[in-house]
């Protein structure tokens, strides 16, 4: 973890027992990884849903110098909140359109990449992506499209999906279902240990 370079506040060594919120349980520490578009105000917009939903920010590590291949800026946020609030905070972030790559130590701990091949544009790419997100409870973290012949020929798309740990195989099966219904081919990742 990047605690040394973090902007602020150390996490308290021990949670004082009397600090209770209306969640009723002791707050725990969580880490959320986000990817932000490089535009003014994005960081503030991403932090607001945390505070609004009872999360207490502990530190923010803003990796400005380390952009993703798509030009996004990775941000790591440490916060504390009662366990039952954590899911609400993550959902609120997603509702604001914030790209949550990983939330907590386990829950969104896996990413997987798949290729779609075929008549991607004319089969309504945004509808395809919507269906994938709806059926799989995976989140689209990144998308690249390559259509060298325009709409005339076969094109390819690379999807990076963030998903819950242990769910990658299920997600891939559902992606295949959605793609097959649209006549698209899927190139799956080889998930070692899944064979």
């Amino acid at each position, binding site marked *: 973890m990047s605690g040394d370079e973090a902007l602020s506040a150390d996490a308290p060594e021990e949670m004082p027992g009397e600090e209770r919120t209306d969640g009723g349980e002791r707050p725990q520490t969580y880490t959320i990884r986000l990817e932000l578009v490089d535009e003014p105000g994005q960081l503030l917009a991403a932090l607001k849903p945390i505070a609004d939903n009872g999360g207490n920010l502990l530190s923010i590590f803003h990796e400005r110098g380390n952009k993703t291949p798509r030009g996004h800026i990775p941000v790591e946020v440490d916060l504390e909140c009662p366990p039952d609030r954590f899911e609400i905070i993550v959902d609120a972030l997603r509702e604001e359109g914030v790209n949550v790559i990983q939330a907590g130590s386990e829950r969104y701990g896996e990413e997987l990449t798949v290729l779609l091949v075929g008549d991607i544009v004319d089969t309504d790419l945004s509808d395809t992506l919507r269906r994938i997100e709806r059926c799989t409870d995976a989140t689209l973290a990144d998308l690249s499209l390559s259509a060298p012949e325009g709409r005339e020929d076969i094109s390819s798309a690379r999807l990076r999906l963030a998903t819950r740990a242990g769910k990658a195989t299920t997600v891939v099966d559902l992606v295949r279902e959605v793609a097959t219904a649209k006549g698209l081919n899927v*190139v*799956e990742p*080889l998930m070692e240990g899944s064979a």
Partner: protein
Amino acid sequence: MSLNVAVVGAGAVGRSVVELAGEYGHTVTAVADSSSAAIDPAGLDPEAVLDRKDREGAVGTAAPEDALAAEYDVLVEATPTTLGDAEPGFSHARAALESDRHAVLANKGPVAERYGDLMALERESEGSVLFEATVGGAIPVLSTIADFGADHITAARGVLNGTANFILSRMAAEGLGYEHVLSEAQDLGVAEADPAFDVEGTDAALKFVILANVLSQGDDEYRLDDADVEGIKDIPGSALDLAAEDGRTVRLIGEATPERVRVGPRLVPQHGALAMTGTRNIVQLETEHAGQLNVSGRGAGGPETATAVLSDVSRLE
């Protein structure tokens, strides 16, 4: 100890077995092609037999089936792979086992399509059946599994078709389209005039079916029909470009477990073990207590595959 070997099939593999048997200390007492046979219980002269085959298109003057009845300790079955009833390869292996002699197969058909029948014949016979050459050419895949113990291996995955691997690795490296690279591969002799068997995934699937049969140790029997098979023809250059941008590439990967067989194009790390270049093959065994075990090398070719056949013969001494 020198064993007497009868070789059925005089294609690239059969010829190389005849040529190299002496180096491995064995004697070839019979050779059969599709129309004739050469038989000499005292041992044939490999050069003379192969010269005659080149000159006259036939290895000898006897009938092909006479080779099956000749004197030998080990029958090497190296006729072309056939699907379904796996004939005539299966009957050749049966002839050896029913007369209590050993059979060594380079022909994938009987092991992939009739594994149960083949094992039943072996149980009734004093002879044994071995088939290292059917999976991964020169690479000792099956003997590694046997040494390690199939019980302790949970899965086998990897690249077992050099033609498909050559095409995908060239497409990725040069940014060329499938058709272009395929015709280049045909010019180089890496792909057959009819490449369907390789590019549609059938050849790789047969090998992974054999691996699944070996790994399941008789609990389940697999045939080609049981495998999920997808080829590489629909992979456009743009898909390989997108994969490369992300540090990945696409290879025709097979997976065999005691429960399942599948072959298809898959995303793998660009610099990972499975992203072989060219025609090389690799098998990665997932072990119970020792992580991954990789074996790689030349997966096809006459002399390469003949070394696997002759290693099997030597195991039977």
